[in-house]
């Protein structure tokens, strides 16, 4: 009987095919990805059958924070209803998000100082530059200079801590008591003013044809015509009264057309 020869097989596996696949996948993800924007808090939006997409450009997002879900706080509703605003500009350079933020900030601060002559705020160039780089923020005008002086990490940390009284744009009352607007309303007014100014400038741009001028697509037209300029993002479990306060402020500022962010569901899906 001959000996059974055990062949020594090489354990090398050809990884070339695997590598091909992974590179393909990688290319796909790199090309399709849009990065998640940094938001101070996570909210779970309710779902609707509406198929309209959130516009990529020219949109102001108002985030309404939800009650604490981690269970760490004694009263979870204390962190509810804090407001944050984020500006997204055009895709092109002159009205990019950074430039839009800069314009909004200048306008809002001017409006604020006009109303609060005794306690005006002044921002340095560095603070303004910091604001241009911030995607989402939520604080009072009084605290804004302090917030913008912080480093990015410190700022994120403070904004993420919703128990901090300095976090959230104040929306104390919705009535124009003695003609003074609250901080949220000042921002809304700034948004409207800036949007209108951009629209007027673009309309007078001599390089445009008549047709292009009629079909301008900027923040102003999004706000006024399509109602897509302002998108409200709130948690599904947030009480209606909290959201109503935001609606009411928008109505007071005559921004009656806006959109609500939702997730998608099918018509046949049970809603309850």
């Amino acid at each position, binding site marked *: 009987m001959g000996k059974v020869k055990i062949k020594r097989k090489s354990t*090398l596996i*050809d*990884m*070339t095919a695997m590598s091909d696949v*992974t*590179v393909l996948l990688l290319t796909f*993800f790199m090309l399709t990805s849009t*990065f*998640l924007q940094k938001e101070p808090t996570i909210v779970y939006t*309710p779902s*609707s059958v*509406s*198929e*309209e997409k*959130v516009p990529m450009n020219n949109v102001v997002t108002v985030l309404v924070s939800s009650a604490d879900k981690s269970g760490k706080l004694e009263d979870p*509703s*204390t962190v509810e*209803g804090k407001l944050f605003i984020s500006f997204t500009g055009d895709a092109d350079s002159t009205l990019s998000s950074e430039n839009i933020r800069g314009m909004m900030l200048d306008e809002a601060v001017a409006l604020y100082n006009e109303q*609060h*002559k*005794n*306690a005006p705020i002044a921002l340095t160039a560095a603070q303004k530059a910091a604001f241009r780089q911030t995607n989402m923020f939520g604080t009072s005008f*009084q605290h804004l200079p302090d917030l913008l002086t912080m480093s990015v990490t410190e700022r994120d940390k403070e904004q993420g801590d919703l128990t901090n*009284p300095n976090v959230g744009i*104040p929306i*104390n*009352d919705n009535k124009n008591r003695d003609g003074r607007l609250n*901080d949220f309303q000042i921002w809304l007014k700034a948004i409207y003013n800036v949007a209108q100014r951009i629209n007027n400038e673009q309309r007078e741009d001599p390089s445009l044809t008549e047709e292009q001028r009629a079909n301008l697509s900027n923040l102003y037209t999004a706000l006024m015509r399509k*109602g897509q300029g302002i*998108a409200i*993002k709130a*948690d*599904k*479990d*947030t*009480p*209606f*009264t*909290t*959201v*109503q*306060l935001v609606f*009411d402020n*928008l*109505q007071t500022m*005559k921004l*009656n*057309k*806006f*959109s*609500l*962010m*939702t*997730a*998608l569901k099918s*018509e*046949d899906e*049970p*809603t*309850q």
Partner: protein
Amino acid sequence: MAQIEQSDKGGKKKKGAQKKMSIHVDFTPMVDMNMLLITFFMLCTTMIKSQTLQIVLPTNENVKKEQQSQAKQSEAITLILDTEYEGDKPKIDGETGKTVHNIYYYEGIADTLFQTSKYLTKEQFIGNVNREAQGIRKILRGKNQQVMAQYETLKNQWKNKEITKEEFDKLAKQNAADSLKTRPVVVIKPGPNTTYEGLINAIDEMNINQISRYSIQLPTSVDTVLLKHYEQTHPGETIIRPLVRKTNNEPANPAQNG
């Protein structure tokens, strides 16, 4: 990593013949790195973009009574929304895993004297069961039959590729706003304990049922009377409850009042 192997089979070689070289490149580290990058991109991307729901609210300035438009009694339907709570969290239905929202509706003008049978009726957002509208959707659809019939025809035309999506959207919009048809006027009144989801569900039903005329208002004292009556006639059900969560109306910062 990469190695060059000499194949020396048999050992018998002609002198001068070139040695056969086979090159093995080990791709494992490359795959590892790629996998890491893929994981990174997968975690950082948003594949599904959020959807939006358009909403137009009326001005909240005082409008004179003469300027207000009155809805026909036969067309009006009022939905009072409410969300059930368990402790300080919205109650979750054990079967569906969704929050429990109730709708109390009445048609026409509220009968606060309770002489007719136009009391509140309780309904829920059920959606479709076997493609048939259920719950509040069935009721709203019944009120908007004329529009919905035309809408279904349009939808079939679109499905049969007789019209394009754009044409369908345009025609559906015209159809929903067709003043020659009997269309309901819906008033949505979210009660104090309603969650945002309840409101979105209600607006959603308007879109599904092609209802072009609806408004969102706060409940009035008449509605409270109706709810009270509902509670009395349905023992064991409580709708009027203290606020579970109060709105955070922080006192104004004194520094701001400069």
